[in-house]
């Protein structure tokens, strides 16, 4: 792991630790006060530079997940999610394979697991500051493409895994019971590996593109809309600038309080 990514990990770990420390330990009280469950859709793009490479590629990922929010009181919430992801990279060439492969295909499927911890840090007037830490991991499913036009049978098999950790403060304005807008700033770290295997009869090649990600910061505006006593809509949109461009993220979810 590089010095830089170690630093990012420390920052994100600190954010998650802060979220834990900011509230009384839930295990001690071991009381789940609220239970909210729903469906969430996330889409984000993240430009990455592959290790040992100078070219960048943009990961575009869409996630649909079932999510459960466990509220432990005093502003501490643990969210767990599981679902499917579709992710792909643009502009990616596997150049060390015997036959260079240029990836220009549709997104690859994956199973996604995530956890998020949110803790209240401070409340003053109609404002409250929370710390939030999030970890999402996508376990890619293999996809196979036939390699056509060769003198022998061939195929390429690709699998994309990625994980993202993010942490940062969230400033919410308690406008009303119905609507709570917020501003969120996050430090983000993404690790991805894209494994491509090439087979032409007895000619084999394997190349794995890896990225430990660079530190990036995102700014997002979001809002929790209480549609009814038990139904809440959560939406968020933001951007993450990087030298030479901007990545984007959106998230929308529909939740039911039990």
């Amino acid at each position, binding site marked *: 792991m590089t010095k830089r990514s170690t630093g990012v990990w420390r920052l994100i770990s600190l954010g998650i630790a802060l979220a834990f420390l900011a509230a009384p330990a839930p295990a001690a009280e071991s009381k789940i006060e609220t239970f909210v469950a729903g469906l969430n859709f996330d889409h984000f*793009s993240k430009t990455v530079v592959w290790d040992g490479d100078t070219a960048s590629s943009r990961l575009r990922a869409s996630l649909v997940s079932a999510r459960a929010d466990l509220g432990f009181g005093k502003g501490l919430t643990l969210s767990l999610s599981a679902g499917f992801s579709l992710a792909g990279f643009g502009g990616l060439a596997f*150049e*060390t394979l*015997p036959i260079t*492969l240029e990836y*220009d295909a549709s997104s690859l499927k994956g199973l996604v697991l995530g956890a998020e911890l949110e803790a209240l840090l401070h409340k003053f007037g109609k404002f409250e500051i929370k710390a939030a830490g999030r970890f999402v991991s996508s376990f890619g499913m293999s996809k196979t493409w036939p390699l056509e036009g*060769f003198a022998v049978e061939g195929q390429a098999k690709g699998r994309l895994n990625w994980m993202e950790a993010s942490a940062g403060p969230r400033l919410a304005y308690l406008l009303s019971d119905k609507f709570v807008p917020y501003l969120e700033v996050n430090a983000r770290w993404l690790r991805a590996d894209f494994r491509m295997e090439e087979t*032409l009869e007895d*000619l084999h090649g394997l190349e794995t593109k890896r990225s430990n990600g660079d530190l990036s910061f995102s700014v997002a505006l979001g809002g929790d809309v209480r549609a009814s006593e038990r139904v809440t809509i959560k939406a968020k949109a933001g951007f993450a600038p990087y030298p030479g461009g901007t990545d984007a993220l959106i998230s929308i979810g529909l939740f039911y309080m039990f």
Partner: protein
Amino acid sequence: MNVPARRSAKAIPALLVLLFVGLGTTDAGWIRRTKLVDRLSQRSARTLRVERPTLRRGSRYAADRVLIRFKPYVADAYAQGLLRSYGFSSVRLIPQIGVYCVRTSHGFSVTETLAMLRRNGDIEQARPDYRARLTDTPNDTFFVSYQYNLRNRGGILDISDDIRPQMTSGADIKATPAWDAALGDPGVVIAVLDSGVDRTHPDLAAKVISPGHDFANDDDDATDDNWHGTHVAGVAAADTNNAQGIAGVARNCTILPVKVAGADGMGFYSWIIDGLIWATDQGAAVINLSMGGDFDDPFLEDACKYAFDRGVVVVASAGNEFGGSVVYPAAYDSYVLAVAATDYDDLPADFSSSGPQVDVAAPGVYILGPVPQWYAGEGNLPYLFASGTSQAAPHVSGMAALIKSLKPELRPADIMRIIRYTADDVNASVDCGRDDHIGYGRINMERALVPYILN
């Protein structure tokens, strides 16, 4: 270069076209047929000159533009409104052909945009804005008209009044698109184990890295006192884009001359063995052997293995005896690529040896290459057409050198597989799949070197 005046001047000494039947170490020695033809110089170099384009490989289409045509019943106003509703930042109509050129929305790739547009029932066609390139031809004088082996656009191969075969477009090794991916690394050396190389030839002077070694006379001067080695070296890696002569397959790779045949074209296995080991130790990446003998010999095989084990791709001509077996060392299947010959129509050459050891084929009929000036004769251009698997093999050596340049980490066995598996099965209608005449087929440099698009 001497440029004679008229084609009809048959009294002027003509350039030789040599049709090879064999270069070998057999008792028969070199066997060749010769044929008189008109001078090459009657095709003025000036008339063939082309400017060197500079465009090199990039992505296949614009990253932020697509072209769209609506169905005939869709009104322009509606079409433009619809395109604006997609969020395209720029919409431009090319009214003469009713096509819109739009800039894709931020955050959406061309693939995504096309997928989205193609779902719309009002849209007839949505296509990427493909990249075009200037015709990427080297400016070597004879490239366009005579080097069908590298790029065959059909028409007549106008060698002389009595040799004017009709060519089939595309019956070539696809050199020009492959050069978009790789021109070769000067550090990748092709050792030409042959009759030596004329280091003073204008198409080779800049490419030969050292005087080489002469195992026929046991000295350090591998000057060609025949002509064969110079011709073979030129096919593999002649100085290219130098506004004269021919283009070589491995344009930027270099040549190490190793003389293992005497002026009479004869050589002994011991010379070849020494040459293989010497070239390997000198750091050659590829060894071309446009020669062979009839006798299996474990010592010769060991020398091939020595080179192979040290990362050298060994390429050898299969032999020029139609119906005969593949000669040695080409027949050492594990360590050597055996190359048969095809012609300007992608047909197997009528002189090419065959057998289970044949790996691939390459053009080997009427191949233009350099020869020493003294051999061509005073007043003649130092080039001639020659035929044989001797001429086919250096195409494969050049290709191997380009692959090695692009992917230096590949081992010889993998490079050999790439060359085999990317070949065009040009005789599939007669003999589908690998066969004993042309192996896996005629080599296809484009398929081996240009990225395969996964979509």
